[in-house]
């Protein structure tokens, strides 16, 4: 992997949560809706893992995602649920660049949750907020083309 400098994030920058379910991707393409559980995480102290998009061609990030799909034995990689940094940083959340050896475009959406009795419900609220504001960016590896669903 060549070294890539993502640089600072701007409010309008796009962050993509990977979609590994074909049926959910089809549903998102048909309805335009992203389900909240895509953003729901078990440990509220860990960030929601996302890719910083539009810093290079989508196929470069998609190749990383497809490798991840293979390693987790997912059926494939079908695109991203996309939110802006502005949305991701709302409601007490923050975004932190966290480049990894195999993914220089990696970032985390941090929920800023302290230990709370109902953290599960709070995580769900954050997840729903993100899902409501997310759009689906389709990825079709067969054609090698990437285009917004609308």
């Amino acid at each position: 992997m060549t070294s890539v400098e993502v640089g600072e994030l701007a409010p309008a920058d796009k962050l993509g949560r990977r979609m590994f379910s074909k049926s959910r991707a089809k549903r998102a393409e048909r309805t335009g809706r992203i389900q909240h559980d895509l953003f729901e995480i078990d440990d509220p102290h860990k960030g929601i893992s996302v890719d910083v998009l539009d810093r290079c061609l989508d196929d470069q990030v998609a190749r990383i995602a497809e490798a991840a799909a293979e390693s987790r034995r997912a059926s494939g990689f079908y695109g991203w649920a996309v939110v802006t940094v502005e949305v991701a940083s709302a409601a007490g959340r923050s975004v932190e660049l966290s480049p990894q050896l195999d993914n220089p475009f990696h970032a985390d959406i941090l929920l800023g949750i302290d230990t709370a009795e109902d953290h599960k419900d709070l995580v769900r609220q954050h997840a729903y907020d993100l899902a409501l504001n997310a759009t689906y960016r389709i990825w079709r590896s067969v054609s090698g083309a990437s285009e917004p669903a609308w």
Partner: protein
Amino acid sequence: MSLAAPTPSKPFLAGLGRPIGYRLPNLLNMALSRSGSNPIGAISRQAPIDLKVISGGGGVGVRPLNGGSETHAEDASTAVAPSWIADALQQLREVADDADDMRYPLPTSLSLSNAEKFLRRLSWVVSAGPDVHSTPGGGVAIDFRNASMSAGVLFVFESDGQATWTLQVGEKRSRSRIFDGSDVLESGGSFALRSAGLCG
């Protein structure tokens, strides 16, 4: 019927007025009624999940797969069921497949049953249909959205019989957990739907 103010077990209201003292429209009151006087009467609220949903002629009928007689909404009421109920019930029937695809635990019969009853009660008071899907905890999520208000209400029927509702209206948020998942509407769920502009 007058509805007492919702008393969610763990209320968390941020940026929204307390759900006290609001008036419910007739249809919502009727849906909330447990006396059987609501227009859903023709479609049994106690019907099992294993149903064949049929539609046509503007009404929705439900036929038990065991060969029981078919009933139609218009048999008992002049009101016409919204077209989304058939699709929502179909999504509910497919939620186990969705869970399998997502590698989630299969939804429990309790979560499925609560979700089904909830959908049937709401079918006459909410005009836009929900998205129904599985959750990581073996529950069922029912997601109503109102794009014109950047709003939505997410109901989750948990595997253990509890439920949550999560409301988002623009930047305003609210949520609640209810220990008896069959009481979601009475425990603030109706307030959430009204706040999101999803029913009268």
